[in-house]
Each structure stands twice: as structure tokens, then as C-alpha cells.
């Protein structure tokens, strides 16, 4: 086991989110709305070979759904999703941005129809050159920090 992976094993079965930008772990916890069903460990501002500093989230006994992964991708581009089985890293994937998300982002435009009627929002996601999300209804574009504050 590489030195970098030592921290990945406080859980025996579940999910570890690694290479999270510092400041995102608490936000992810808030978004996943896990309540008290799982043992959860956060590591905040730890040393990282790749990033200098990073956050980590350990969730015992849970594998994330695609919807949950997509939500995390919006605020933690480039993070690594590790599935732990029997205390071993069973899979390790880089979280990719989805092409679109439904019901995940609240539109920042107060005059958007989605803020006036109860309609699930729809956003197209553009990863480059800078992350952007475009509202399917009002066509307003949101930048990375606007998205971070509007994921629900």
C-alpha cells in the first residue's frame, strides 16, 4: 500500500472521497443528507502529494448513487471516488462531470420561472475552459462559485 493510501482505511466497507479541494468536505456532507445512518469521518486540510492540501470524506456502509456522485462532481471536479470492500480499495475512479443535471442546482436568476413555480430545474454542464452551468429555462449561465453555492 502506498503511503498516500493509509488514510483510506478507517472504514471496511463503503466510500472514500479523496482529493477534494480544501473546504468542500463539509459541503459534501451537507449535500448528501445522510443523517445518522452511517459512520462518517471527515479529514480536513490534510497533506496531499498531488494537491498540497486536501479534504477527504469516509462513509461507512454506503456506495453513492449516480445522482449523488453527479452532485459531488459539480463542487469537487477531479475528486477520486474509492469503493472500499473488506478493507481493500475495490475500485478507484476519478469523478467526471455529468453533461446535465436535473433538480440539483437552484437557478441563481430570481426572475427564472423555476423560482416562481415548483418545477425541477435542468442545467447543462460545460466543464471547459471554466466550469459553467446553463439553465434550460432562462438560459442564464452560472460560474463555479455560483454553482457551489446553489447545489441543493
Amino acid at each position: 500500500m502506498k503511503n498516500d493510501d493509509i488514510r483510506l482505511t478507517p472504514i471496511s466497507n463503503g466510500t472514500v472521497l479523496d482529493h477534494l479541494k480544501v473546504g468542500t468536505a463539509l459541503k459534501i456532507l451537507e449535500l448528501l443528507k445522510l443523517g445518522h445512518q452511517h459512520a462518517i469521518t471527515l479529514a480536513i486540510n490534510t497533506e496531499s502529494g498531488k494537491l498540497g492540501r486536501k479534504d477527504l470524506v469516509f462513509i461507512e456502509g454506503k456506495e453513492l448513487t449516480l445522482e449523488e456522485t453527479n452532485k459531488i462532481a459539480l463542487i469537487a471536479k477531479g475528486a477520486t471516488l474509492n469503493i472500499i470492500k473488506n478493507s481493500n480499495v475495490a475500485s478507484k475512479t476519478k469523478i467526471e462531470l455529468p453533461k446535465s443535471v436535473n433538480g440539483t442546482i437552484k437557478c441563481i436568476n430570481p426572475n427564472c420561472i423555476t423560482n416562481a413555480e415548483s418545477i425541477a430545474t435542468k442545467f447543462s454542464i460545460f466543464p471547459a475552459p471554466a466550469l459553467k452551468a446553463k439553465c434550460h429555462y432562462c438560459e442564464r449561465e452560472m460560474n463555479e462559485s455560483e454553482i457551489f453555492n446553489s447545489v441543493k
Partner: protein
Amino acid sequence: MLIERSNFALADVISINDFSLNDINFILSQASRLEAMRIAEKNSLLSGKVVASLFFEPSTRTRLSFETAAQNLGAKVVGFSDANATSQKKGETLSDTIRMVEKYSDVIVMRHPLDGSARRAAEVSAKPVINAGDGSNQHPTQTLLDLYTMRKEFGKIDGLKIGMLGDLKYGRTVHSLAVALGMFEGIELYFIAPGMLKMPEHITNAIKDKVKIKESAELQEFLPELDVLYATRIQKERFADPLEYERIKDVYILTKEILQRTKSGFRIMHPLPRINEISNELDETDAALYFQQAANGIPVREAILNTLGNEK
């Protein structure tokens, strides 16, 4: 006979961003054909059809030209021009209003103060929806009539040198027009606006690979180059500091004097209403294209109604 629907891919007219060059050219060609027809020749094209004209906020030109266009084609028009006269006042959602209206109409024309309302209406309605303005977002039929006006006046759109003047930051007409012009060949755009009202970057970025763009706060510099100057209104309420407004408002007023520096064939366009940005003395000159432009709303809206209204 008139409709070769395979050349038009859209089920609704919601945003100019949905249009391909093919779709645009199809509507412009249909508009030319309809404009050349006498009323007696075209007033059966939509006979027996009902056009719902839902104006949740006031409009003069757009509503009248849509309703005239519908009647020219023989359609019946039902609707309202004031949301206060509707159940929205009682708290009905737009989605519910549309679900009701689509049951007794064949095409829905809608203006609504909320951004994205037209897209929502189209989602809920099985009948085609035409966006006549959704908040500050889109007004695609204005863009199509602007393009139609240029094509009719110059015989083509490709290669035109077009100045856009005034409030380029908040004006949705110039945003949509710039994006649409980006689909044509050899277009040169001259953006003329005070620093605080410059064309937003997301628009210039979207078209900069397709058109040549020049920007300046000075009108005089570009005048001799232009085929068309598209003027817009500078709204006082955009300025935090009223003094700043006073300082720049007169800089962009067009008078007869500018014609000394323009080339022959030069034309002025404006989406109207104008306040004082085009002096009345220009109205009788050959350069004034803005009233003709407003009149072109009729054939363009006839073309859109005829295309969508005959679909189902």
C-alpha cells in the same frame, strides 16, 4: 404547397439559440413569399385554426403584429393583453394556464415577465408555442424580423458590416441578433457602447471565431465602414449615478449630421420604441429603416404562424 416543413426542425419558437442557419433561412424565405401574396391569396392558410395570444405583460408592436399576422392568414385569435384579467391574478400557475389554453387553440403566442416561461410553456403544451418575449431572456421573432429586414434591404446578410450602438450590456435584442449573425458568412460587427454598457463577454466569446468584431466607445470612428447601424435605447435606470447618465446620454444621439460620414446605402435600424436616440430629422431620409423594420414583423410572424400552425 407553401410548407416544406422538412427544412424547419423546430416544434416551437422559444430561443434564437435553438435555430440552425437552415431554420432561419426557411423562415426568411417563407416571409418573403407571404409578403408578396395578397391577403385574399393567403387568408385561408390557417382557416379554422385558433391562435391563442397570451400577453401577460403589455406590448404594442409585438402583440398587434402577431394578431394581424394571424388574421391575415384566416386564423381566429383568442387571448388577453393584460394578466390582471386572468386567473393568474387568483394565483394560477403558468403551467396550469397553458394546460388549459392548449386544449382550445392550435398555436400559442406568449409574452410573460418571467425568464424561461416560454420554455416551460412549450414543455407543458402539446401545441406549438411561440415566444413573444420571456422576461429579459429571449425575443426570437424580433431577431428574425431584424434579419429579414437586412436581407430584404441588402439582398443578402452575408458580408454585411453592422454597427450596434447604445446599451449592449442589457439589451436582449442586440445579444440575440449578434448570436444569429454569427451563423452567416463574412459578417463584421462594430460594438459601440460606453465602457459600462459594453457587450458582455459571453456573447463576444460565443461568436468571435465566426465574425470580425471591433469595439469602441466612439461612434465617429466606425461610421464610414457601416452598412447598418442598429441603435438601441440607453435606459436611465441602468445607471447607479444619474450624473454618469447625463454625461453620456447625448453622445449616442443620431442626427442628420452623421450622414455626412456614412457610405451610400447606409441604413439605421432600431427595435423601437425610441426615446430620443434617433432624431426625428432622420425619419424622412433614405437611411431610416426602422419603421419598415417594424412593418416587417407582419410577414415574419405570418411565416412562423403558418409553419407551426399547419404542423398538427
